[in-house]
């Protein structure tokens, strides 16, 4: 009787986890991330700052991977959309005194609309055109923001109000972590639905997808708009966390960072980038702060890692995990890592 009961319970837990697209290991990881700011080496304020940066990159990597891993379009101006959302939110807060919370949402909507317009223009063309166009868009917007000093204060940087009235980084960490989880679950839901199936079909074989009656332009635009909306939301967080925005934010090097994390994490997995962002960004920050006499070394590592992963192991960490780690002999471990129970 008792065993039956526990089976029922675990069945419910499984169903909830399945609904949330999480495995037991992922739940454990999330709990670890929630308590990590209290574990000694990480309870310093600068460490929490790094954790926030890592979570932000991780969330960006999910949104980025949502486009590149599924419909095979590189949004090379990703940070232009992020910066657009951030600037919108910051300008609303500074000039109209709007609450940053509402501003973030409006920024997200603005970025989404911009993404929709860009998508309408470019996504009917070959993927490389979309990459170039978003890249040029980023350049043009960077130029515009630098020049529109009366609105954005140009290169001087736009100061914007913070989200929380505290100097601690902890509330920001929990906010971005929650955002990360919400973004992960919602994108995962979309990719699990029929629409996600269409995305994958388009990304893998355009001809076959069109033959099965999928309108590639429509699905590409939906996907792109969604990704840009998330970028805008995270841009709002960026603005109101760091408190200052400069046109440099829209530069492509930032996008390359997200691109590298998304690829190393595993293209098309969504969770890979979010997972790998934490160890990766913290290692990078350590390298940057300890080897400050060698500027640019961390970026060289970024570039090399990106190239090596792309050539020799295109699946990234997610594929490594799925082939070697996810299915150990031990039944309990296997359930823990992959969420699959033996029948």
């Amino acid at each position, binding site marked *: 009787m008792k065993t039956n009961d526990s089976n029922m319970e675990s069945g419910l837990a499984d169903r909830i986890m399945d609904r949330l697209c999480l495995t037991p290991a992922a739940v454990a990881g999330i709990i670890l991330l929630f308590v990590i700011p209290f574990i000694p080496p990480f309870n310093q304020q600068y460490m929490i700052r790094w954790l926030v940066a890592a979570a932000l990159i991780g969330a960006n990597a999910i949104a980025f991977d949502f486009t590149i891993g599924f419909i095979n379009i590189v949004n090379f101006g990703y940070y232009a959309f992020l910066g657009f959302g951030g600037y919108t939110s910051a300008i609303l807060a500074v000039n109209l005194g709007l609450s940053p919370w509402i501003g973030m949402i409006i920024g997200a909507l603005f970025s989404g609309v911009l993404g929709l317009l860009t998508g309408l223009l470019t996504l009917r063309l070959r993927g490389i055109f979309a990459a170039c166009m978003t890249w040029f868009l980023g350049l043009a917007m960077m*130029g515009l923001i630098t020049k529109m000093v009366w609105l954005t204060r140009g290169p001087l940087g736009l100061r914007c109000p913070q989200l929380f009235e505290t100097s601690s980084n902890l509330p920001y960490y929990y906010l971005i972590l929650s955002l990360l989880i919400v973004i992960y679950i919602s994108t995962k839901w979309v990719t699990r639905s029929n629409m996600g199936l269409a995305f994958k079909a388009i990304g893998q074989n355009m001809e076959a997808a069109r033959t099965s009656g999928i309108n590639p332009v429509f699905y590409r635009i939906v996907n792109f708009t969604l990704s840009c909306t998330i970028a805008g939301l995270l841009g709002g967080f960026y603005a109101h966390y760091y408190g200052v925005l400069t046109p440099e934010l829209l530069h492509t090097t930032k996008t390359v960072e997200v691109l590298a994390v998304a690829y190393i994490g595993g293209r098309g997995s969504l969770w890979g980038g979010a997972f790998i962002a934490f160890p990766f960004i913290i290692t990078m920050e350590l390298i940057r702060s300890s080897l400050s006499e060698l500027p640019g070394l961390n970026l060289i590592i970024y570039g090399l890692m990106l190239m090596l992963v792309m050539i020799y192991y295109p699946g990234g960490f997610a594929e490594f995990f799925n082939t070697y780690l996810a299915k150990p002999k031990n039944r309990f471990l296997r359930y823990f890592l992959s969420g699959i129970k033996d029948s």
Partner: protein
Amino acid sequence: MTESKTGTVIVWMKSAGGITVTLSILIAIIAGIDSGPYIIVNTIVTGGMLALVALGLALIFGVMNIPMFAHGEFFMIGSLTAYYIFTPLAEYLNTSPNSLLAATAPLIAILGAMIVGAVAGLLCELLIFSQLRKRSRENWVMNSFLLTVGLSVVLINAHQLLFGTEFKGIVRYWGGRPTEIMGAFVSRDRILVFVLAMVVVGVFWLFMKYTSTGRAIRAVSQDQTGALMVGININGILLLTMALGCALSAIAGAGLLFLYPSYPAVGLEPLYLAWFVVILVGLGNTAFALVGGFIVALIKALTVEYIGAGWDFVIPSLLITVVLVFKPSGLFGSEVRGVLDL
């Protein structure tokens, strides 16, 4: 005979490309009258160099299907090499001015840059692109594009790490009194460098048109499988193309050293502009890259003159957007199939 020739010219004038070229020339003349002929001179000098960079970019895309994002870094490699070759030579010249070196030192520097650029291109092809080609041909364009992104980041930061961020530039190559052309004073360096660029373009054109290797390159760009069947060594051609494209970019970097001192991110601006050119004329269209170079240089010169510095990315980007919306295959049409992959 002459009538049919004028007929084809008129037909061409009515096409998008013809309209653009005619309009550009007209606008250039009007701007030249309005605010001085230096606009035209500037356009022609920067356009020549831009054409070199864009030519390499178009060649690599047309033959190898690689949208090269790291092309500006070969510009940077070229300018860096030229700096390190030319500076010691210039110091030697200060002690013994009237030697034969005075006229040839810049040429030696540019030649050295060309060789280093070509070798760098070879290494990239051997170490990176051929490795990817061996392993996967799926989504080749997108994957190779991302690879070049990584390459660009590595090269920029390697420059910063090894040579520092300071500007490594020279004041002049040949020097001498500026020459007066149409009322504008143009330094001799600019004229000679422009002549050099045109000579390089001419040699390149002759090479592509009349040598068997050039024919093989064109064959590969049209149909790789077909080229393989008639016994062309594809890998060799790809290596050569990469070396050629990168060498062209390095020559441009070395030639413009007196205008653009070498620093880590020096290649970004030529890269953007070269991409504008390539999209404007149609991806992979080598023949019109030259024309496109002048058009983009004109747009940039006009923007700086009439709207102000700092807008020179905004306006060209908007124009390119318009081109992409109405003529995605570029103004002069493109031989690369499937612009609309839908």
